[in-house]
């Protein structure tokens, strides 16, 4: 049976690839962007099943109106994909107040507003699936990406708590955690801070690893099957890695953290009193 999907920021990258696949198989899609001209070809190709909406997700009122329009248009809403988001490169000390606030607004508060707008409809119909674009960097961190890490960590905490709040209503929540992919993340979409010399060394290290094995980055087209399976699943998981690095490295990172906590456990216990 065809589904109705509301997705943010789908004019390029993952979002664009996914909506093409969803429309191709007959699903109905509402896709938002600050600039919807990027959707013109899809409007022509799928006039009955595709609806583009101009939206700045950091405007809560506008988000509520867009969600209402979408539900009125198709009469039902099965899946919301919070896909809008971008990267910010810069050591934590280098970040300007504006750059730090802007990325949190889009990556966290925008996600919160869209989620909040969908919840009344999902509760009323007794089903719904909220899919949040997190990242492997929502689970562990890389230097020079501190604000991006923080924003994705925040989405993880928010969404995991949300899942516990809404499970009784038949509403599912999934955090999708891609590793690096050949999208525009590192080039066109990202914002960069003014560099300080003290961090040149760290920056060079990061970009050195970035340039290493050619197959380190996933192929965005290969994620389509995973997203379709996720959308069609009766019991979707709370978390889904995209790519081969997430599970491997997360196991190592968790073990490292646990080993350190174990080493200091006598201090932790003494602190209880």
């Amino acid at each position: 049976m065809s589904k109705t999907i509301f997705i943010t920021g789908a004019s390029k990258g993952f979002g664009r690839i996914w909506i093409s696949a969803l429309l191709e198989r007959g699903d109905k899609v509402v896709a938002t962007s600050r600039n919807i001209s990027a959707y013109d070809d899809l409007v022509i190709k799928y006039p009955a099943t595709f609806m583009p909406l101009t939206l700045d997700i950091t405007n809560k009122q506008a988000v509520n109106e867009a969600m209402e329009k979408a539900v009125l248009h198709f009469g039902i809403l099965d899946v919301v994909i919070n896909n809008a988001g971008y990267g910010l490169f810069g050591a934590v000390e280098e970040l300007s107040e504006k750059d730090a606030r802007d990325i949190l607004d889009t990556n966290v508060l925008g996600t919160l507003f869209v989620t909040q707008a969908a919840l009344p409809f999902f509760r009323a119909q007794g089903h719904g699936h909220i899919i949040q674009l997190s990242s492997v960097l929502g689970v562990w961190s890389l230097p020079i990406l501190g604000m991006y890490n923080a924003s994705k960590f925040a989405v993880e905490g928010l969404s995991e708590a949300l899942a516990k709040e809404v499970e009784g209503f038949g509403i599912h929540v999934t955090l999708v955690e891609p590793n690096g992919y050949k999208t525009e993340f590192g080039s066109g979409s990202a914002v960069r801070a003014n560099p300080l010399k003290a961090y040149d060394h760290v920056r060079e290290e990061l970009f050195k690893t970035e340039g290493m094995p050619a197959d380190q980055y996933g192929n965005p087209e290969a994620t389509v099957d995973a997203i379709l399976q996720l959308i069609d699943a009766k019991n979707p998981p709370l978390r889904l890695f995209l790519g081969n690095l997430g599970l491997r490295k997360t196991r190592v990172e968790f073990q490292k953290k646990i080993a350190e906590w174990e080493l200091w456990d006598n201090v932790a216990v003494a602190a209880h009193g």
Partner: protein
Amino acid sequence: MSKVIFITGASKGFGKLWAEAFLKRGDKVAATARNTTALNELVATYGDNLLPLPLDVNNREEVFNTVQTIEQKFGRIDVLINNAGYGLFGTTEETTEAQARLQMETNFFGSLWVTQAVLPVMRRQKNGHIIQVSSFLGLTTLPLLGLYNASKFAVEGLIETVGTETAHLGIKTTLIEPNGYATDWAGASASQTSSDIVDYAPVREAFAKSAEHPDTWGKPEATIAPLLNLVDNANPPQRLLFGKIAYQAIQQVYTQRLKDIETWKEVSIAAHGH
């Protein structure tokens, strides 16, 4: 040797307790809070070793000015303790934009601004320890604490990154993750969303029931010796749990997460594409 400690949110809770413990053993303390009158008694006892400064950590410029004042007074900053923060209770759906923003402002941006202001000082010293009060709820979640979880998860991601970025500069970072403590975190200090949506009544009831076991809460005074130990340690950990419940609980959480991930492992790997 005596240390210079800068601690935010020092008018009550852990902050005040720790500030007093540092002063008692002869350290110098710069203690900030929106309202510093609660520190008057300590000023009377410890005089010049305590510098109380009114500060709203949400104001980045004010934060930078405050750090300058501290450096002028004490000549250096050995340890920063980002302690200011509070809990927002309520469902994600019922959280207003203003409540969400304020929770992130104080718990996350406040720590970011203070850290940014202190880093140049510590870089000049080629030495320093940034201690961030996170929470067990920066690692795992509870319903009705979504925005608090988000703010503490965010400081975990942020300070972990600061640690990686500044290790070569002689700066150390530690995230402290306390389990429940008998401070007024869940009482007078807490903020609360509306509870207008009746659908969530069962979630609220379950939450209230789970909070009925104050015997599982730690004693704030017991954290003093471990904190002093942390500050004096030549090789402090990146993360330190506080409390007897946290370690076992987080082990279970991580084990379960890895198990859950296995279920969709093949889908994940196929999505890499090659």
